[in-house]
């Protein structure tokens, strides 16, 4: 009997490591849809830009799998699960028995129906997986004008990579601003400025109505606003949704993703979920949500692994956080950003220095920080996470949170002396909260 993990990303690797802290014996089987060992998908844009080499994209060296008795089935897809008999069915007909199963299948690109017919053309690609990277890499020498559909995190990083390779870039984004889910209008202004400085054409509140194809190549893009663009390639950077197609027929509860409790267990015994596919408790919203965040995937994988191996660990909850550095402009944001939808009683505190391209914004509800945006002002900002996670009172620390220098000196003496001398460091489990709140 083995531990079986569907998926081959950071959650899977983290789970392997935490399983092995407790159980060094039982084999772990990883079922990987892609035929590559675990690698960092976010690194794809850096590879295109020339900042990272392909061989450095892998999360662990080969010895990791050998040393830890992990068998990786490359290029195999899970097609179904039989929880009663504890079997995972693969696309090649094989059946894998599991003692504990972790579903860490991540996300698949979300293609709006209107574009589906174009996805097989020569010069269009999503920008999520290794094969997308290789397709674009092959195209790169011959293309010049590139249209990126979607100005979110993936789209902006793709734009950066292409600009560094001296391509002419167009971005079509549906909302009023780029990075719409992780920044507000005021902060986005600085990214728009950076885009403009680098001759990137940005079409806001706009998207592609249709493409003009010739000889299996997309030649033109017709935008909703009427513009027609001559393009050599298209990158679909619209977004991902959880990959849960193979769960059909089981009674694993899902919503948008797979619902899990704070030990990352699903509604079915011995089946766990972690990463982009999991819909778990969100610290800021106070309810279960999906959140495609790299660091959350690692954390959740680790917690799932402990529980799978019999060591009880209780996840404190996901904190949405994003860091994006686009050429000379950088952003770090946390928690709830889109204040136009969720809460009416958000208090907003801002600090802006347009002359220095600095913008800071704090979203506060009931004297607790629930979201923050920092543009070009990232010094030691990770300390902010304590305010959200531990629900510290906001009014005491308001000035420091908006100032350039955050540190421990503003905290209570006992708190800071305990923290800067922490022996074990900050923990992702609930026990950490009990000590600090």
């Amino acid at each position, binding site marked *: 009997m083995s531990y079986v993990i569907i998926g081959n990303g950071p959650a899977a690797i983290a789970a392997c490591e935490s399983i092995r802290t407790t159980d060094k014996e039982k084999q772990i089987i990883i079922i990987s849809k892609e035929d590559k060992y675990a690698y960092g998908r976010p690194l794809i844009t850096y590879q295109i830009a020339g900042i*990272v080499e392909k061989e450095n994209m892998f999360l662990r060296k080969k010895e990791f799998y050998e040393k830890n008795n992990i068998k990786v089935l490359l290029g195999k897809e899970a097609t179904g699960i039989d929880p009663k008999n504890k079997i995972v069915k693969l696309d090649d007909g094989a059946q894998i028995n599991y003692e504990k199963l972790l579903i860490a299948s991540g996300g698949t690109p979300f293609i709006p129906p209107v574009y589906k017919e174009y996805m097989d053309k020569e010069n269009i690609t999503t920008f999520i997986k290794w094969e997308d990277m290789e397709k674009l890499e092959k195209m790169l020498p011959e293309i010049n004008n590139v249209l990126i559909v979607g100005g979110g995190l993936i789209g902006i990083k793709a734009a950066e990579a292409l600009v560094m390779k001296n391509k002419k870039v167009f971005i079509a984004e549906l909302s009023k601003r780029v990075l719409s889910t992780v920044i507000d209008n005021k902060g986005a202004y600085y990214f728009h400025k950076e885009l403009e400085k680098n001759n990137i054409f940005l079409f806001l509140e706009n998207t592609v109505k249709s493409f003009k194809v010739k000889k299996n190549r997309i030649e033109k893009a017709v935008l909703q606003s009427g513009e027609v663009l001559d393009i050599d390639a298209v990158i679909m950077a619209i977004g991902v949704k959880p990959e849960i197609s193979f769960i059909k027929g089981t009674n694993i509860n899902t919503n948008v993703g797979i619902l899990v409790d704070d030990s990352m267990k699903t509604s079915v015994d011995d089946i766990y979920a972690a990463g982009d596919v999991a819909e778990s408790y969100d610290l800021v919203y106070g309810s279960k949500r999906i959140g495609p965040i790299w660091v959350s995937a690692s954390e959740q994988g680790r917690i799932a692994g402990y529980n799978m191996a019999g060591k009880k660990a209780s996840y404190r909850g996901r904190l949405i956080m994003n*860091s994006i550095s686009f050429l000379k402009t950088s952003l770090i944001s946390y928690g709830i950003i889109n204040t136009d939808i969720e809460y009416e009683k958000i208090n907003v505190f801002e600090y802006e220095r347009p002359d220095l391209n600095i913008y800071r914004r704090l979203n506060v509800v009931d004297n607790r920080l629930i979201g923050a945006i920092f543009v070009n002002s*990232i010094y030691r900002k*990770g300390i902010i996470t304590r305010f959200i996670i531990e629900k510290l009172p906001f009014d005491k620390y308001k000035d420091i949170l908006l100032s350039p220098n955050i540190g*421990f*000196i503003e905290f209570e003496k006992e708190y*800071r002396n305990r*923290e*800067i001398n922490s022996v074990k*460091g900050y923990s992702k489990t609930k026990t950490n909260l009990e000590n600090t709140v």
Partner: protein
Amino acid sequence: MKKLYFREEWCVGCGRCEVACAIEHSESKHPIIAYFHEKIRQTPRIVVERKGNISFANTCRHCEEPDCVNACIAGALYKDESGKVLYNPNKCVGCYSCIMACPYGAIMKDINRKERKQIVKCDLCNTRKEGPACAEACPNRAIIFEEKEG
């Protein structure tokens, strides 16, 4: 594993620890050359905070469950066998996810490096045979390097 511990009651705020850190992580390890004649002036991995009569230093805690390692998309931050959390600049892509995630604010931009985006963090001076330079430079034992139970 021995770690650095900071005693606020003895810190005099002189900043020798920051200077020692920068010099120790320079190429020449010579104070004058490190500060004035090297291509990149090192950013100290230790931060001294001061306000009124209070001052203290703090660095990376080398957490058992490091947020930075979890956040790193490139595998540039890793935990070695001894338990130290270390940084391999060759793998770093400059995404600053580690700065975003570290609840101690222990990771900082390498500000003097212009051609590549990189970070700096405390490595417990793991290649220095006398141990951490900051603890040695402190005139008042406000920084101690020792083993403690959690």
